[in-house]
């Protein structure tokens, strides 16, 4: 039976995590349809149709899907579910919000945060902040799973699958979006960036966080990340938190600055290819997994590092 992948997008652009989740969806060994639900999201549908392996894109272009609310989206997925053996989404804040709702309505147990597909019913997923990996088998009639995008390579482009409009499902009208306070940033998106520079409690203030990390991020064309301590203290926006309860990243290079390396933080970045740690405490746990460690004061080392890298490339 066909697999249905819920696309992640902001009505305008398709989130790159969709192409990574597609790789996981294809690994189930069945044809894949992609659902793009939103308002004015035709462009995202065209982008989804361009990925190799997609058989069909379902486009639900309706005002009720524009706000990304779980209730109408789940109703739509339930309407479509009869034709599918599996429903998949990237484990983004939308995927995590919508898919368990769908699973409960189908009376199946969701498999969360899959990092490898071992077979059509067997999956690997991290538990305990990534300190253990569980291999689980789903015996339910339908499979509902969210996928940790960073664990999968993006499906290649090179396709022009058909795009079929689907009728909207009912809207239970239980939730209303009052305000969308999306943070606009000129930095690359955290989960898609090749390089991430991340700051912790050591920065002491938002002003110093910005003043030290921003030039470094610009010099490296990097995304900015933060520890929970830095977000809690207001140095960085909540959507920059990396870790067990924030975003999971696996960039080529992760530079942790003034971050101690608590297990909850490591859960979000330990799959980076190369990890650099800059910390004044030589016994900070972050050094135990850093490829390159530099002991010292971020207030002197970061400006030095930015200067050494030369102008932005």
């Amino acid at each position, binding site marked *: 039976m066909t697999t249905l992948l819920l696309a992640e997008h902001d009505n305008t652009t398709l989130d790159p995590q969709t192409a990574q989740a597609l790789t996981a969806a294809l690994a189930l060994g069945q044809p894949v349809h992609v659902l793009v639900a939103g308002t004015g999201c035709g462009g995202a549908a065209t982008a989804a149709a361009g990925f190799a392996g997609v058989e069909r894109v379902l486009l639900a272009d309706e005002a009720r899907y524009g706000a990304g609310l779980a209730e109408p989206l789940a109703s739509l997925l339930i309407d479509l579910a009869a034709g599918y053996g599996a429903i998949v989404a990237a484990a983004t804040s939308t995927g995590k919000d919508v898919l368990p709702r769908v699973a409960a309505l189908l009376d199946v147990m969701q498999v969360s945060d899959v990092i490898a597909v071992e077979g059509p019913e067997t999956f690997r997923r991290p538990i305990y902040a990534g300190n253990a990996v569980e291999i689980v088998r789903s015996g339910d009639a339908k499979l509902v799973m969210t996928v940790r995008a960073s664990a999968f390579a993006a499906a290649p482009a090179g396709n022009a699958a058909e795009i079929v409009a689907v009728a909207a499902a009912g809207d239970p009208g239980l939730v209303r979006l009052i305000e*969308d306070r999306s943070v606009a940033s000129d930095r690359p998106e955290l989960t898609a960036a090749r390089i991430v520079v991340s700051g912790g409690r050591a920065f002491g203030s938002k002003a110093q966080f910005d003043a030290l990390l921003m030039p470094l991020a610009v010099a490296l064309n990097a995304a900015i990340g933060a520890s929970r301590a830095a977000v809690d203290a207001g140095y960085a926006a909540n959507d920059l938190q990396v870790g067990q309860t924030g975003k999971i990243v696996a960039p080529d290079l992760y530079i942790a600055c003034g971050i101690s390396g608590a297990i909850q933080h490591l859960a979000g970045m*330990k799959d980076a290819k190369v990890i650099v740690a800059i910390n004044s405490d030589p016994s900070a746990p972050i050094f135990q997994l850093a490829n390159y460690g530099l002991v010292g004061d971020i207030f002197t080392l970061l400006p030095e590092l930015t200067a050494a890298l030369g102008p932005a490339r």
Partner: protein
Amino acid sequence: MKILVAVKRVVDANFRIRVKRDGSGVELDNVKMAMNPFDEIAVEQAVRFKEAGVASEVVAVSVGPAKAEDTLRQALALGVDRAILVQHEGRTEPLGVAKVLRALAEREAADLVLLGKQAIDDDANQTGQMLAALMGRGQATFASGIEIAGETVRVTREVDGGLRVVDLTLPAVVTVDLRLNTPRFAALPAIMKARSKPLAKLTAAELGLDLSPRLTVLRTEEPPQRQAGVMVATVTELVDKLRHEAKVI
């Protein structure tokens, strides 16, 4: 207004767990257990609503072994009025727990159900969403702000792109995130008083529910371990290594 709050007994967040040699699971003997940190935040929020006169009663529920009574006593010490333990030995799954919570939310005629966004043992992040679906009610996940005004609850949600504010019609389900509040510590007199607060015990079977797991855990493995690399002495050396050895910049 009545609030139901779900609390799970989990391995303490500061405890470094070990995978059993034979791959049959995680070592749970002689391990420090605690209330799931997100649930402490949910309890704190419920108690604040009670103190502010917004809620008339707060009831805590846990699905778990007899020992989960400790977790419920902790919730009672933090200001919860009453507790219900649904005894169940062995693994619980979000779907089963959601069914139990639905049955109790109905029985108690709860107006608001508060849960943590995620249990730090299974990291599933499902139960609240499943509960809202089963109740046919609205959900607001990852809350960093909750206000109640009449029949409406306004929730600020932490999402990937920033923040979103939503209004839900009560009854509703809200799952809480870390920045909602800072939980208090229970004072000794409150801990003493909690011993005599009502705690009811029942089983899933008494609610007509079957909690047998749907997922079979075939194996539990140690994740691949990273090795520590080298220490560099200067920024110049670091840049050189990144350029010529790691070739990442």
